[in-house]
């Protein structure tokens, strides 16, 4: 009986899907699945009302385990949610939140996002969401409650501790947020551009930043793609186009489905083909970041500095199954202009360097117990008129901060001061800058003290000397 059922099923499938079909032998190969199902139902503790469905789905999931991490199975509910997410039905209130000092705390609400528009600020505590206390709520659960469909509202009760303590309730309309993805600073005549992800508008924003930089006399550009998870393919092409002459292949895709075979060329944009360029990558630079770095590397357009990138450069397509469930399948791989496979290999930097943020227990405690924050607030109350260029962290301040923190429950010893002076000074300066001048300046302070950025600056200065490296015209690579 079972065999007949499978043969019928196979016939049905071969009519439905044009492509290769599973032969009779092939179906027999999978008879063991029924055996397994019977065995599990007899022996295992089963806490489900829909065990047959679970086993059917489980078998699909199991196949994805032996493939790659981007080939996934979606149950009907997951499939629906995935589609909604892709179409942007779901949104939050436009802010990052963190559990700090056991309280749900707002961190840098996005510019013009719902939270900022509703008047919420950095370090505000969300003590209730829709009347429900956030005390003892897990971070994930809090985020789930803050998120919802675009246009719906969520009521939050806010505790603000600074400059005076007050509690108030606001209602926030959830909406899609355009996150700033490009940050630009100039350090010693070198332009620094941080690209946090390749969103739809990042390419245009990057070009705006570049033309602004070019009005100043800069020696070169550092493009920071560290921790950039990727994004739109077209944005990646645009970013590369900003530095490479038009008509060059940026990336191509190849798969078994003819639809998957495509190549993308750089297009005409205001280009800066000659400006020395250093691209920073790390193990979290993925997808579009890797395509861009790969193209720059193949054309010799930039020095790639950092650590080998993540190695995610594949294309997925979602195929619906019968009952609303679906399978997302990796159908193609990206290739660099020189036809290098990026997937699972990553982009190897021209110059290795790993000095990224190392986790430090003391810094974690000082952040978590909010010693930096409390000290920065007290400092600004003492020196309300301080200017950005006057802000210096002296040994006396570090000493004062150490005894302040020790009083506030985080022991900072003499040897901590000796060993971690630079780190303490960096974090303290950034926090004071944040309270006094806002998030952007604080980020600049952190970037300025970044070892890899310093290294990139050295490289650009070196390129000044070895001009020939980048002033040669970029050639077409076939």
């Amino acid at each position, binding site marked *: 009986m079972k065999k007949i*059922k*499978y043969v019928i*099923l*196979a016939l049905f499938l071969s009519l*439905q*899907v044009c*492509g290769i*079909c599973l032969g009779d032998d*092939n*179906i027999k*190969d*999978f008879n*063991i*699945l*029924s*055996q*397994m*199902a019977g*065995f*599990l139902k*007899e*022996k*295992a*503790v089963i806490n*489900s009302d829909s*065990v*047959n*469905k*679970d*086993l*059917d*789905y*489980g*078998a*699909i*999931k*199991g*196949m*994805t*385990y*032996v*493939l790659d*991490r981007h*080939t996934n*199975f979606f149950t009907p509910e997951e499939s629906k949610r995935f589609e909604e997410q892709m179409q942007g039905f779901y949104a939050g209130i436009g802010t990052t939140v*963190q*559990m*700090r000092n056991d309280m749900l705390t707002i961190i840098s609400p996005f510019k013009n996002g719902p939270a900022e528009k509703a008047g919420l600020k950095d370090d505000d505590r969300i003590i209730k969401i829709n009347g429900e206390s956030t005390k003892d709520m897990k971070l994930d659960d809090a985020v789930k409650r803050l998120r919802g469909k675009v246009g719906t509202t969520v009521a939050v009760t806010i505790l603000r501790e600074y400059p005076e303590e007050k509690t108030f309730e606001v209602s926030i309309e959830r909406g899609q947020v355009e996150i700033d993805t490009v940050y630009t600073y100039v350090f010693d005549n070198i332009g620094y551009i941080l690209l946090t992800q390749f969103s739809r508008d990042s390419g245009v924003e990057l070009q705006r930043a570049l033309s602004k930089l070019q009005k100043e006399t800069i020696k070169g550009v550092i493009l920071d793609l560290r921790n950039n998870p990727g994004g739109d393919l077209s944005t990646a092409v645009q970013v590369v186009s900003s530095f490479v002459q038009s008509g060059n292949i940026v990336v191509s895709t190849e*798969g*078994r489905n003819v639809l998957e075979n495509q190549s993308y060329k750089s297009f005409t944009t205001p280009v800066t083909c000659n400006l020395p360029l250093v691209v920073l990558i790390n193990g979290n630079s993925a997808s579009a970041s890797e395509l861009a770095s790969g193209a720059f590397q193949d054309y010799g357009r930039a020095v790639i500095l950092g650590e080998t990138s993540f190695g995610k450069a*594949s294309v997925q397509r979602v*195929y619906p*199954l*019968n009952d609303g*469930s679906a*399978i997302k*399948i990796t159908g193609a791989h990206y290739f660099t202009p020189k036809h290098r496979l990026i997937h699972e290999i990553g982009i190897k930097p021209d110059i290795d360097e790993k000095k990224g943020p190392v*986790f430090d227990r003391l810094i*974690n405690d000082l952040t*978590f117990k909010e010693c930096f924050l409390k000290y920065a607030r007290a400092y600004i109350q003492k020196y309300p008129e301080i200017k950005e260029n006057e802000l210096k962290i002296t040994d006396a301040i570090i000493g004062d901060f150490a005894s302040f923190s020790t009083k506030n429950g985080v022991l900072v010893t003499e040897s901590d001061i000796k060993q971690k002076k630079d780190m303490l000074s960096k974090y303290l300066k950034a926090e004071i800058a944040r309270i006094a001048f806002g998030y952007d300046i604080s980020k600049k302070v952190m970037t300025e003290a970044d070892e890899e950025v310093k290294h990139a600056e050295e490289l650009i200065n070196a390129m000044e000397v070895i001009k020939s490296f980048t002033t040669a015209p970029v050639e077409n690579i076939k």
Partner: protein
Amino acid sequence: MNFFLMPTAKCWLLVKKGENMKRMYRMKGNVLILVLIALCLTLCKVKAEEPDFTEFFKALEYLKTYYVDPQKVESNRLKEGALKGMVLAVDPLGDYWLKKDYELVKRQINSVQKEIGIRWTIRDKMYVVKSVLEGSPAAFAGIQVGDMLAEINGKDVLPGMTVTNLNLLGKDDRDISISLKFYRKNATEPLEFNLQNKTISRKVVAYTFENGIGYLKPVELTAGIKSDLTNALRNFNDKKVQSIIIDLRNVCDGDIDTADYLAGSFFQNGLVLAKVQDAAKQIKPVTIKSVEPNLTQIPLVVLINEGTVGIPEVLASAFSEYKRALLIGSPTVGLVERQEILNLGEDRVINVTTGYYLTANEKQIQGKGIAPDDKVVETVQDYAKRSIENDNLIKKAKELLEVAKIWRMR
């Protein structure tokens, strides 16, 4: 069915009033359970349809047609993946191997000495530390029960990773260093630990304090410790110890036979140690067989904590329920699945939860845990520094045994 649940060994703690009443209720409860079992059995027979794998075959077709690398979608490969997926769909704690692969795993479990000392479970789809072996690299690094896994060696955890895979992480004859990143409640950022595998002593620790109190710590409750255990207990017997402290803190590996063997010295023959409720909701008792030396009259204190998991929890439940020992420490979490290794045909092996342990009184332990009689919580600092001579819980236990001695002389 065995209704005889009270110990014949004399309780050295006071029997509370109302115990007889409780016994009556328990009898009624048992009859009720019998009726329920009968009901369940009839219900089970009703749902016996077979899955038809409709969605599976469609997904298989798509993968074979469109997956980027044709070699990776070869039928045998996908089939093995599918079989493992089925086991994990039914039991997230389960596992699946081809027999030849299982032989390697078995060898790794039994004969490889070096490890990092973490035991894992799954909670809310996260891999969670359920116990940290004492004296292990993980314990020295400060990894705690409840830590949730974020990354292994800088990489996300792959889907399809099994609890067995994680338990064997770092179990290798070579020197291996592993970096683990965890989420921890109340930590702002994930915590990273670098661990180097090493040989952890699995020997039974036995010690006699001056005032005639014996201290016994089995690091695990597996068959390999039986002779050590007997030697230690004989030694106590020869030295005529007045009372014994059994330390089950952070003990998580074990099998029911060995737990029963240990109980054999402290309980009368024929008592029920615990019960097992299987997949068909049938309940079967595990009875204690007497073992020499006979220490049934010796007062006991048992130390437990959140790292006392599985079979050691079952053993602690017997000491507690029969009031055979005073339990001190912190509550256990209640993870008492009975996992079995089963053969599917000749070539395949699965590991799956086939039941849960209940207390002798058929109380649920799973998800509930065992509460200590006297709650003494240790801090992480205590943990790292303590030794047999300098350990708050042992001190507390000695004090209580001293009080008990005076109480009994009265």
